[in-house]
């Protein structure tokens, strides 16, 4: 598990060692493993936006509305399936850049992912 930590892994490793035997270990480990990022859809809004991630990060959108939403990014030619309530869509951002996207059903919903 620890080997999967990225930069700052040493500090985290120390922290992990100190926190061994407590619930904190679990929390930190989960965060580290999920080096990948999440965007939540709530009330017809993408959050956070902009989301800033490193190249190679997989971003997962999750829809918490009672109405389906989708993710459409013309620059990447990405078009997700419609996500019904609590469904997700994941995409791995390989290249640095600024990517604007919107909901294919409700195009007034805009979001942005910045890949560094």
């Amino acid at each position, binding site marked *: 598990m620890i080997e999967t930590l990225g930069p700052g892994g040493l500090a985290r490793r120390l922290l992990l060692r100190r926190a061994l035997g407590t619930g904190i270990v679990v929390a930190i480990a989960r965060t580290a493993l999920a080096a990948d990022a999440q965007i939540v859809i709530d*009330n*017809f*809004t993408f959050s956070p936006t902009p989301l800033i991630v490193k190249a190679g990060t997989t971003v997962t959108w999750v829809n918490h*509305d*009672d*109405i*389906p939403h*989708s993710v459409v990014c013309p620059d990447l030619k990405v078009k997700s*399936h*419609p996500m*019904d*309530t609590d469904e997700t869509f994941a995409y791995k951002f390989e290249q640095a850049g600024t990517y*604007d996207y*919107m909901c*294919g*059903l*409700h*195009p*007034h*919903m*805009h979001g942005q992912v910045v890949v560094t």
Partner: protein
Amino acid sequence: MSIDPNLQRRGFLKCMTWAGTAMVWTVAGGVPRSRLIGSAEAAGTDFTFVQISDSHLGFDKPANPNVTATLQEALDDVTKLPMQPAFMVHTGDITHLSKPAQFDTAAQLCGGTKLTMHTVPGEHDILEEDGKSYLNRFGKGTKGDGWYSFDAGGVHFIGLVNVVNLQGTGLGNLGHDQLEWLEDDVAHLTASTPIVVFAHVPLWIVYQDWGWGTADGAQALSYLKKFGSVTVLNGHIHQTLQKVEGNVSFHTARSTAFPQPAPGSAKSPGPMLVPAGELKRYLGIASVKLVSSKAPLAIVDTPLAS
């Protein structure tokens, strides 16, 4: 908007409401008039048709866990009409997720009325197979993404599709090809021909922040300027809203599934929850009467539901 300038926004918003039943349209002297089913007797031998909208078959969330039952209820009212309507118009979002089973249920329930159904897709109807699952079932014989026109009762009907290739403007979109077709479609008609246009998203800008409008709707309407009577029927916003502008009257229909909030009155346009057990009561009490004091052709729309 050419509504009475004394009508303040608050008053205007009060005029918007919703209910889960069908709308009956009667064309008398070239002027379509609407009312909710059950509110009045059909007038003589006038040409009538029915509009239903936003049945969202497949939706099962708390705002209405049984949209099939509420659609059936609306259709039952249609079949009970004293005078059989010429046909039924469905202004889109027939299904919630474009699933085959949802389209099948729609076809089965609506078929029970024995009425011909003229439809246009909502954005929820084209989520699968690039819209083909809609076109294969409800769009046979149509052009492009599902637009078409036909004549009935002395009225020229035009079904438009404004939910495909939505752009960053956040609004509905007709697109170049459809606009060209529309211009050509009405070119040969005399100015005295009553026109009824139906599409899912409102053709005019109802509320931009929620995408309730059509980016190139004004261009479409510019092709209809010569006509003495133009009626625009839309759905999408799950509430009744009316506006008269010159010779054009705009109407949006209620959903048969669930209500949505008045523009700007909530954080988002998502389904509006009403207290448990009160959905139908809420659905039935709508009353709208909005008449422009200046328009030469005032459409009297009195959708009263007791």
